[in-house]
């Protein structure tokens, strides 16, 4: 008896939508209790287009093949002491920030997509979310494996989980994802799949992976290639979600617009940290944050929203503020890291002369007028043996949780801060964008875990100062924390390369 094999298309239909059914013992609304309360109206889930017709068996096959290649290269990297071929050990500050800040987000994304992969009543959307959930879990694991080699030689890689629930700078990415995961399923996919993975993803992926390639980090570059085909699937899901929802019902447009406004701004704020990496942490530069913003937002992003205008979607609120801020935020953020690095599990430093020149070239008068004087002042203090560290906790935005280093767009000398009152209590923000998000959902954001407030309430092991707080983080000056040029990482790097310390600032990098 001849067995008839199904065509690919037929197989896909049978193994995804063919597995779905209308429930009869229980009403569908009880089986899928979360996909209506946001007010999004779906008339016909069958209109969902599956951009990648991937079945589960094919998925396992592709991923297994990628894993084999990845781990072969990671083994070779490790056996050949690949860490010695990095451009400079300073580069690893970027990878430490990735390990501590981004890898846990991959895991959070796994949880989030597992949840919505259960909650949508359309089988096409469920399957896409299920596969993305598995991708994200794989990315969390392969990143840890790729970075684990560095843990043998450098400080700051060994306690990402401990840090994640405690460190002030990690509450920024953590709270971003917790906000998304506690929203409804449509808001979750709009935030993560559309705003972050579709609109802003190039700004995240390009600097990390190209940065790794430029700086001799074969392990991370190989991870990047291994994740690339997954990422393109995620991006396509992001666009499909938005188009599908907008085409289903006109009442969905204002809800989606609010989600897009909120998550564009939240994603943009989170990327301030990535921009800082591009401009300050990579010893060999790829492109500046301002250039990346120009290409990936001002060209590609605006073109995308031009396409979306036929659905009645306009550009995200405050996008023009983000564009004006592109000349400032990375320098301002690096000031925070430079002054607060006794309480970070990575090192910071003054830019070297060639980097100051590069920043002048990329940022022109903005850098020379407003930021070069700060670095020069800090350099003078270092030379005098008084390396400046702050010992005071900062004002942190109630929404994005970034220490408020932002200035007014029309006056970079003036501190930007916004205020709101809710139920008789005052709240403070870094921007109109973050204030608007709070005002829409004060019930949610009033519960935010803001690190300085938690410290002052006694919830950080009783710490009151930055130094006591660092001890609670298990961060030690010279090992995990403090200036790079007074760190073990730097001393080891010189030793392994048979070099002497020739950096003028290094000998003066005193303890706080």
């Amino acid at each position, binding site marked *: 008896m001849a067995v008839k094999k199904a065509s690919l298309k037929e197989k896909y239909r049978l193994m995804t939508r063919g597995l779905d059914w209308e429930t009869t013992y229980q009403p569908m609304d009880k089986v899928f*209790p*979360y996909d209506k309360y946001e007010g999004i109206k779906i008339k016909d889930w069958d209109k969902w287009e599956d951009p990648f017709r991937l079945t589960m068996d094919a998925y396992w096959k592709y991923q297994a093949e990628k894993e084999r290649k990845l781990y072969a290269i990671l083994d070779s990297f490790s056996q050949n002491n690949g860490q010695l071929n990095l451009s400079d050990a300073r580069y690893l500050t970027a990878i430490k920030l990735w390990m501590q800040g981004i890898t846990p987000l991959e895991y959070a994304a796994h949880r989030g997509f597992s949840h919505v992969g259960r909650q949508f009543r359309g089988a096409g959307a469920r399957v896409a979310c299920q596969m993305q959930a598995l991708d994200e879990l794989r990315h969390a694991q392969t990143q840890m494996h790729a970075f684990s080699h560095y843990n043998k030689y450098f400080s700051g890689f060994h306690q990402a989980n401990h840090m994640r629930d405690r460190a002030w700078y990690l509450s920024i990415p953590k709270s971003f994802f917790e906000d998304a995961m506690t929203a409804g399923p449509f808001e979750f996919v709009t935030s993560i799949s559309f705003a972050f993975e579709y609109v802003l993803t190039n700004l995240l992926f390009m600097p990390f992976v190209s940065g790794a390639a430029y700086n001799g980090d074969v392990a991370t570059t190989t991870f990047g290639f291994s994740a690339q085909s997954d990422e393109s699937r995620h991006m396509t899901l992001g666009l499909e979600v938005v188009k599908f929802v907008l085409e289903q019902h006109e009442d969905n447009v204002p809800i989606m617009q609010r989600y897009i406004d909120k998550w564009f701004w939240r994603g943009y704020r989170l990327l301030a940290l990535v921009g800082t990496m591009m401009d300050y942490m990579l010893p060999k530069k790829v492109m500046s944050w301002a250039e990346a913003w120009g290409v990936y937002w001002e060209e590609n992003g605006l073109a995308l929203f031009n396409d979306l205008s036929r659905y009645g979607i306009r550009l995200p609120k405050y996008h023009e503020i983000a564009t004006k801020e592109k000349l400032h935020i990375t320098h301002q953020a690096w*000031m925070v890291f430079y002054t607060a690095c006794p309480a970070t599990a990575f090192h910071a430093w003054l830019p070297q002369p060639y980097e100051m020149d590069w920043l002048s070239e990329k940022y022109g008068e903005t850098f020379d007028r407003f930021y070069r004087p700060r670095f020069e002042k800090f350099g003078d203090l270092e030379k005098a043996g008084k390396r400046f560290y702050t010992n005071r906790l900062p*004002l942190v935005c109630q929404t994005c949780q970034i220490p408020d280093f932002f200035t007014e767009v029309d006056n970079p000398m003036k501190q930007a*801060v916004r205020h709101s009152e809710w139920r008789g*209590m005052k709240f403070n923000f870094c921007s109109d964008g973050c204030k608007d998000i709070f005002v829409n959902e004060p019930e949610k954001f009033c519960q935010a875990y803001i690190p300085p407030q938690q410290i002052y309430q006694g919830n950080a092991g009783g710490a009151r100062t930055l130094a006591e707080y660092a001890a609670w983080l298990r961060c030690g000056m010279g090992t995990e924390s403090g200036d790079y040029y007074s760190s073990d990482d730097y001393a080891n790097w010189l030793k392994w390369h048979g070099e002497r310390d020739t950096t003028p600032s290094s000998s003066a990098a005193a303890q706080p």
Partner: protein
Amino acid sequence: MGMVTIGAYDFPPADRIENYGGDINLYCCWEHHLLVPCPAAYRLPPDITLRDFLEQMFKPDHDHHPEMKLLDYAKLRWTLDSKPWQPALDKSLRDNGVTHMSYLSFYQPGLDGIAGSGV
């Protein structure tokens, strides 16, 4: 617009004043002096005078700044929550109307930081 939720959703603010043991949380910023790159947060008893706060806490945080010695209390232009404000230096924070999570800032005309760069 209220939050859209699946059920009752009502939780107290994480930073309510009851969690501060009688103290308040206060923010303070010296405008055009961004060497300390963010406004600073303080936990303080509300009956400390504004002058004591400035002398004992705020000024030591900025003692590395060359313009600190030029600071003249009589010339400061103050704001409270970004609105113009006339405080009495020798009155307590409470009597000055400063409450939990208030944001104070001051600017002294002429002091615009190192090389007039706002730092």
